[in-house]
C-alpha cells in the first residue's frame, strides 16, 4: 500500500483545488491511501473547501501555509509540514502550487519521505510575477525540480518542454499528466437549459457570453470588458455578458463596466456551485487570461458543448484548435477578442460546429477517471524505483 500526502497551499477556487480533491477522494483503496493538507484561503479569494466537504475529503489544516510571502508564517508552515510528514509517514508527498512546492518538498526531504512529486499547474515565473520576484521564483522552482523532487509533473506537452527549457528539472524526470475534472455532469448539461436565462430574465433569442474564473489581474478580465463594449457597439443582436467568479478585482471590474457604459449588459454572478446550469445557458465561453495552465472553464465549457474564444496562452492550444474546436486570439489584445466574439455572435452555424466538435478532444482525456488512472501509474513507477 502506498501512502500519499497531498499538499496544496490553499483550497481556492480553480482547477488545482478540484484536481487535488478528486485525487484524494479516489485514491483510497487497497493500493493507496491519501491525505490532503492545505493552508487557509485568503478572505478575498473564492473558497473551494465546500467541494472537499461535498466529496467527503477531509482537509488537514497546515497553520502558516498561505499564498502571500511572510517569513514567520513560512517558517511556521515549514515546521508544520515537516511535522505532518513525520506523523503520517507518507511514501509520497505530492505538492501542487508554488508555496507548498517549495516548503513541502524541503520538509518532505528533511523528514525522510522516500519520494516527492510536484505538479506545475501553471508557470508562475511567467505572467504572475515580474522582475526580481520572477527570478527568485524561478530559481526556487529550479532548486525543487533539480534537487528535491523525484518527479515533476507538467500538465501538457507544451508545458513539459517549457519546464525543460527553463531547466526546472532534467527531462527524464518531467512527466506529462493532464489535469482531470469531473466532466461527466456537464456532458448532459442541456437538460437544465433555460434555468439561468430565467434567473437573469433573458429572452431565448438573446446571446449569452460568459467568462468564468477568479477575478485576479492575470485573468485580464479588463480586456474581456473592453471587448464586450466593442461587441455591443457592433451588433444589432441582443447580447449579454456574465462574469462568474469572485476576487480582489471585482470592484474595479464593476467600476470599469460602469465607465464603459455597459453595466446593464454585464452581470457579475459571483461563485456558482451549479456549474451545469451556468454552462447549459452560455452561447460562448470567453477566456482573456495573460497566462494559464489548462483552464478549467474551457474544459467545462467544451464538455457542455459551448464554443470557446480564448487567448492562446499556456496549455490552451492543447485543448483548443483554432478554427476547429474554438477560436484563439493573442493575449492582451481586446480588439482581436472582440472580433472573434463577433464572428460567433453572427454565425450560429459556426457556434454549433465548434461546440459539437470540441467534446471529443476533452472527454475522456481530461476527465477525472483518466487523471486517476495516469496518476496511479506514475505513483507505481515511483514506488517501484
Amino acid at each position: 500500500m502506498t501512502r500519499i500526502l497531498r499538499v496544496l497551499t490553499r483550497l481556492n477556487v480553480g482547477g488545482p483545488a478540484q484536481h487535488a480533491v478528486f485525487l484524494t477522494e479516489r485514491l483510497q483503496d487497497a493500493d493507496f491511501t491519501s491525505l490532503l493538507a492545505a493552508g487557509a484561503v485568503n478572505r478575498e479569494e473564492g473558497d473551494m473547501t465546500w467541494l472537499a466537504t461535498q466529496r467527503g475529503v477531509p482537509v488537514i489544516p497546515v497553520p502558516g501555509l498561505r499564498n502571500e510571502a511572510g517569513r514567520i508564517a513560512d517558517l511556521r508552515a515549514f515546521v508544520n509540514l515537516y511535522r505532518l510528514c513525520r506523523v503520517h509517514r507518507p511514501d509520497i508527498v505530492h505538492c501542487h502550487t508554488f508555496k507548498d512546492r517549495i516548503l513541502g518538498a524541503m520538509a518532505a526531504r528533511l523528514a525522510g519521505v522516500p519520494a516527492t512529486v510536484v505538479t506545475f499547474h501553471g508557470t508562475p515565473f511567467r505572467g504572475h510575477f515580474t522582475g526580481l520576484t520572477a527570478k527568485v521564483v524561478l530559481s526556487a522552482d529550479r532548486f525543487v525540480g533539480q534537487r528535491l523532487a523525484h518527479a515533476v509533473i507538467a500538465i501538457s506537452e507544451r508545458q513539459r518542454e517549457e519546464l525543460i527549457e527553463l531547466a526546472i528539472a532534467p527531462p527524464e524526470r518531467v512527466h506529462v499528466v493532464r489535469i482531470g475534472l469531473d466532466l461527466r455532469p456537464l456532458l448532459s448539461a442541456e437538460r437544465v437549459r433555460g434555468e439561468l436565462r430565467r434567473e437573469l430574465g433573458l429572452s431565448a433569442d438573446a446571446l449569452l457570453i460568459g467568462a468564468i474564473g477568479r477575478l485576479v489581474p492575470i485573468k485580464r478580465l479588463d480586456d474581456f470588458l473592453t471587448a464586450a463594449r466593442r461587441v455591443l457597439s457592433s451588433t444589432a443582436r441582443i447580447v449579454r455578458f456574465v462574469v462568474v467568479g469572485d476576487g480582489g478585482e471585482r470592484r474595479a471590474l464593476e467600476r470599469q463596466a460602469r465607465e464603459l457604459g455597459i453595466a446593464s449588459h454585464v452581470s457579475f454572478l459571483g461563485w456558482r456551485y451549479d456549474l451545469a446550469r451556468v454552462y447549459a445557458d452560455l452561447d460562448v465561453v470567453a477566456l482573456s487570461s495573460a497566462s494559464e495552465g489548462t483552464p478549467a472553464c474551457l474544459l467545462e465549457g467544451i464538455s457542455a458543448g459551448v464554443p470557446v474564444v480564448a487567448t492562446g496562452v499556456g496549455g490552451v492550444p492543447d485543448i483548443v484548435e483554432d478554427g476547429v474546436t474554438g477560436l484563439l486570439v493573442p493575449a492582451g489584445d481586446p480588439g482581436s477578442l472582440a472580433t472573434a466574439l463577433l464572428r460567433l455572435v453572427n454565425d450560429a452555424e459556426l457556434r454549433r460546429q465548434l461546440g459539437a466538435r470540441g467534446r471529443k478532444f476533452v472527454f475522456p482525456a481530461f476527465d477525472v477517471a483518466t487523471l486517476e488512472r495516469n496518476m496511479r501509474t506514475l505513483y507505481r513507477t515511483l514506488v517501484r524505483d
Partner: protein
Amino acid sequence: MCGIAGELRAQGAVNGHDIAAMCATIAHRGPDSAGLWVDGPIGLGVRRLAIIDLVTGDQPLSSEDERHRLVFNGEIYNHRILRRVLEQRGHRFRTNSDGEVVVHGYEEYGEGIAERLDGMFAFALWDQRSRRLLLGRDRAGKKPLFYRPGPRFLFGSEIKAILRHPSENGLVEPSVWPEYFLLGYVTGGRTFYRDIVELPPGHTLAVDAHGHERSRRYWSLPFPAERPSELPEGEAARVVHDLVVQAVEKRLVSDVPLGAFLSGGIDSSIVVGVMSRLSAGPVRTFSIGFAGDPAFDESAAARTVADHFGTRHSELVVGADSVADLEALLGAHDQPYGDSSAIPTFIVSRLAARDVKVVLTGDGGDEVFAGYERFRAALLAERLPMLVRRAVAPLARWMPAGNGHYHWTTRARRFLDSLGTDLPWSYLRWQAIFPLEELRELMDGADVSHALRGFEAVFDASRGGESLHRLLHLNFSTYLPGDLLVKLDRTTMANSLEARCPFLDPALIEFVGTLPPAYLTRGGQLKRILKRAFADLLPPPILQRPKHGFGAPLAAWFRGPLREYVSDLLLGPAPLLREHLNAALVRRLCSEHLRGQRDHSARLFALLNFEVWLRALRAGSARTGARVTA
C-alpha cells in the same frame, strides 16, 4: 448508515494514513462521503451513507467548543425529542444530523447518553479534556463494533478495518472453532482473532489515554420482568398493536427512498401492512423466490401480501448459477459465518439497493414474540416426564433420515433427539450444526465441552425465570446478536443498504417482557398475541401459514450447480481445513450429501465458510504491501 474506525494511542501520534486505510476497507458501508480527524493520540474516521441530513451531516461531528468529537454509525429515532430537550438546556446544534444529539447528550448526561438513545447505533466519542474515548453500542446489537484493546487501542465497524491497521498482526484464535461448528457463530463478543473482540450489545466502553478500559452494561433484556403485567389478553394485544405501529412509524423517517423486505411470513407482512397504512403512496417491497423449490419458495405468499396491500412489488427468482454470489457473500464476512440464510438475504438486499437506500424488515419478530419452532419443541419436551423422554429419545436413531429441512421426518427426528436432555440443551439440539458427539469427532476427539460455556453462562443468568422467558433471553443474547443481526448488517451493508427492524424497538420489547408466557405461546400456537393484535390487518391465508425460515435450497444447490465448487473446496487437492479438522468426517459428509443420502447442507456450508476463511488468511499473510524503496 455508516462505518466507523479509529485509533487511540497511549504514546506517539496517530498516523492519518492508517485511519484512512481502515476506512477504505469499509467504504461499502458508506459510499457517500468520508471523514477523518487526527490529533496527536487520537484518530477517528468514518464512511457515511447519507440517510438523514444529506447536506450538513458530515462527520466527525464536534461540540461547540470542539472538546468532543464523534463518529457515529446508525439511526437515532428519538433524535428530535432529545434535540429539543438539549436545546432547551442551552445546547446549540450545528447540523440537522441525528448523530449530533450524541455529542450534546454526552455533554449533558456523560455516559448515560447511551440509555437515552432509541435507535440502532455504534459510536465512538473522544473527550479532548478528559482524554477519554467512549464507545457505545445499541441494545439489541443491530450495529456492529469491534475493538482491539491495548496501548494502541483500535476500533472499527467490521473486523477487516482493524486487520488493516499495520499494528495488528491478525493472530487467529482456534479455541472458538468448536463453538462455531456447534452454533454457526461465536458468543460472548469473541472473534476468530485472538486480540479482536466485539463490544456486546447494550454496553458502553470507556478507554483512557493509557488504553485502560472499563465497560458498562446499560441495558439488558427485561426477562423476567420486575413487574409482570396484569392486562387481560385482549388489552395487551391492543397495546402490542399500538407499539408495533409506533415502532414502524419511527422508522419511516428518512430523507431518501425507503422500502421493505417481504417474505410472506407474518412479521414482514405486518411491517408492510402497517407501512401501507402510514404511507401516502404505495410501499416498495422486495422479495426473492427460488425456481422450482416449493419448500423454500415463499414468493407466492409474498405476492399475496403485496397484492393485499397494493405495494409496488419487485420479485427476483434466483437459481444457484452464481458462485460469484456465494464468494461475494463470504467476502462480506471477516470470519466464518455458518448461517446459509445469509444467501437469500444478500440477494434480496442487492435487489432492493437498486431502488431504495433503506428497508424495513420483519427481523426480530420471532425473537420478541417467540416465533421459533425450537421454542415450542423445547417447551413441549419439558412437559413430558424425564423417564418417558429418556425412553423415547433413542427412537430418533430408528427414524428414517428425512431429506429436507422441513420434511416431517427430519423434524420428528430432531424432536425425539432433543427429548433426552434438559433445557437449554433440548433447545440447542434444534439449532446445532454439529451436535456434540459429532463435534468431538470433527475436532479429532478434542475436548469440546468449552464450546458450550458461553451458552451455559447466558442461560444461567436467567435462573428463576419462566422457561419460555429463559429461552427468549437465551435466544436474544446469543442467536440474535451473533447470527441474525450479523447476517442482516453484513448482507445489507455489503450492498450499501440500511435495514431497520421495528420488532427490535425497545419500548415494544420491554412491554412484551411483562406479559405472561401464555400470551405468547399456548397450545402449540406461536406468537399468539402478535397474531391477535394484527388479525384484522393480515389476509387470513398469511395468518394461518405455517412458519417458514428464510432459507435457500442449499441442499439441492450443493448437489447441482454448486457441486463442483463444494467438491473443489472441501475434497479437492488440498483443503486447508484438514490441518485442523477430521478430514475423513468431512469427506464422508460431503459424499453422503452429494450422493443424496442425507442432507448435510448446513454442515457443509459451515465447513465451506471455514475453508474459505483459512484460504483468505493464507493469501493475506503471503501478500506483501508495496513499499517505496527510493
